[in-house]
């Protein structure tokens, strides 16, 4: 059995952390796009669209992310595709992120005072114009802090993809533990790396919240 130095452990974990970062970015951007589509369905005027988004959000917020990963992994396989772990991980995380982001953003749009809708409509603006020039610019300001805050959940969510075999930081932690028999050190480092990824995001969310302080400015 060969010996492993602390640097060996840390180096391998950091290499694997690149995949955590990449998967987080893909999930966040993809989830943002799908989430935006869901948002427009939800605040649009179609009843069926609203009902669909409601059911979608309920389904994804009411079931464990781990189950969604399993279903993506085995469900995509039913179509005869040979599903690599990264594909199932990406699909499940994007759909999961979309549910939460659309719900956060819906709250932001709905928090815009009703007078804004009435004022813009009294100026003769159509629905699209109201959205484009009045509602969304204001909602966007409110949406920034919670959106950044949710990105922390996405980074932490990627840890579960290790269970379906995607080799990122958590999986690397397990693999390195199996080689070194030093779980305390290894998982300590893994936690530390996650912390270094997440804490700046948490902090910037808090700072943005204080800086924009939009919640109290509208009233």
């Amino acid at each position, binding site marked *: 059995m060969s010996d492993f130095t602390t640097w060996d452990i840390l180096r391998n974990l950091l290499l694997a952390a690149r995949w955590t970062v990449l998967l987080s970015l893909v999930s966040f951007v993809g989830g943002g796009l799908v989430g935006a589509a869901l948002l427009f369905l939800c605040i649009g005027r179609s009843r069926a669209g609203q009902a669909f988004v409601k059911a979608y959000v309920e389904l994804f917020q*009411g079931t464990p992310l781990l189950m969604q990963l399993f279903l993506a992994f*085995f469900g995509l396989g039913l179509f005869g595709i040979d599903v690599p772990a990264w594909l199932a991980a990406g699909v499940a995380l994007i759909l999961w992120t979309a549910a939460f982001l659309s719900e956060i953003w819906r709250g932001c749009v709905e928090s815009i005072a009703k007078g804004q809708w009435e004022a813009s409509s009294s100026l003769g603006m159509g629905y699209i114009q109201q959205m484009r020039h009045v509602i969304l610019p204001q909602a966007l300001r409110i949406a920034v802090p919670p959106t950044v805050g949710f990105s922390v959940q996405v980074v*932490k969510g990627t840890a*579960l993809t290790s269970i379906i075999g995607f080799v990122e930081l*958590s999986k690397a932690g397990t693999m390195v533990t199996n080689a070194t028999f030093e*779980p*305390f050190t290894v*998982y300590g480092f893994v936690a530390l790396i996650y912390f270094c990824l*997440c804490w700046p995001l948490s902090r910037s969310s808090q700072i943005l919240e204080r800086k924009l302080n939009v919640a109290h400015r509208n009233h």
Partner: protein
Amino acid sequence: MNYAFDFGWLADYWPVLLKGLGITVELTLVGGVLGVALGIACAWARALGPAWLRPVVAIYVELIRNTPFLIQLFFIFFGLPALGLRMSELQAANLAMVINLGAYGCEIIRAGIQATPKGQFEAGASLGMSRIQTFRHVVLIPALQRIWPALSSQIVIVMLGSAAVSQIAAEDLTFAANFIQSRTFRAFETYFAATLIYLALAILLRQLLRGLGWTIFPRRGAAR
């Protein structure tokens, strides 16, 4: 897609699912009650506690909130025995859930405490109550009432997150599903059934917590 769905295994394996469900419920119950208790204690420490305690709690909260539950679980179950702290899968799972909910609960409850008008503290003091008494009798219940919806959803999130404890071989609902699919090779159907059970559990838990809120908190205006 030419795949024939088959839920026939349910007939043989439903007791396994039920047993797993029982463990998940038990974990949620213990984790929920102790986690909220820990959250209250930490919120008190962070908002009103002695100066030396505040940064300690702050570090705990930030560490937990910025690392994945899975890693906390692994650290407790695989890492802590290196320090001589050995425990069973279920104990480790319970401990991880309590620590996790404690940190999130702390921040939520602290928000409720800090929204308490200053006059409430002064009124308590003017009645000759100590700071602890004021907190216990005057501040805590309205603070919990204020943030009950947020706390409820956090408890539901922790319940759903408990699916990860199957990874340290705690025999919860997900563990049961893993077991069944390894026997029947009906992976999609098994996880689909387990997912539906989780969904039902989440909806039920949300309603239960709402009902609990109605019973433990006085309605606004009704107390007069």
